[in-house]
């Protein structure tokens, strides 16, 4: 485990650890996955209703 590593990097002490991190790519991937899940769910529900 990483906690056993004596040479681990010092913990970020800043009050806002996310400052300066660009999360745009993460945001787009997460939303795409969410939209995919919703679209497949409602697609299958429509299939269920039509049969």
């Amino acid at each position: 485990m990483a906690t056993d590593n004596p040479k681990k990097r010092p913990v970020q002490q800043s009050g806002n650890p996310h400052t300066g991190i660009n999360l745009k790519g993460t945001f787009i991937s997460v939303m795409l996955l969410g939209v995919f899940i919703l679209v497949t769910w409602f697609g299958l529900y429509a299939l269920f209703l039509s049969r």
Partner: protein
Amino acid sequence: MHLHKYEKIWLTFGLGSLALFLVIIGFAAFWKGTHPMSHIETIDPQNVEAHDSFKPENLGLREVAEGKYTVNIVASAFNYDFGTDADGKPVKKIRVPKGSTVLFQITTKDVVHGFQVAGTNVNMMVEPGHVSRLETVMKNVGEFTVVCNEYCGIGHHQMFATVEVYE
């Protein structure tokens, strides 16, 4: 706790989806009565004939009321028993008019089988000791193949039948 603006958006989206689907599950279970096909009712798999629905003379398709049908089936390796026709031949095809309400009742004498009328919403697991039931409205015309979708042994692929819905 400080959250990044994007984190707030996707956490809201994620929690919103969770709430939405929990409401859907609750609605399906408590308002629509959706539940597993094998109800609490049990049956002796060694002696399914003791159950009224699975007596040999009660197997197969039967019209119980205007537009309402019951289909009783006994599954076993590797056959679906829909009863016999007037010539004593095993029934492998049943026909119902479009729009009829059909209740499928099925049990198994031996191992776990599947019962799927491919192309419709009829899809159940059939477990020894249980009676699986599913009522549906056959709203689409066509020939639908009944298949076993739980691998039950060497003759698994030989378990099939046909449901025809006519105009």
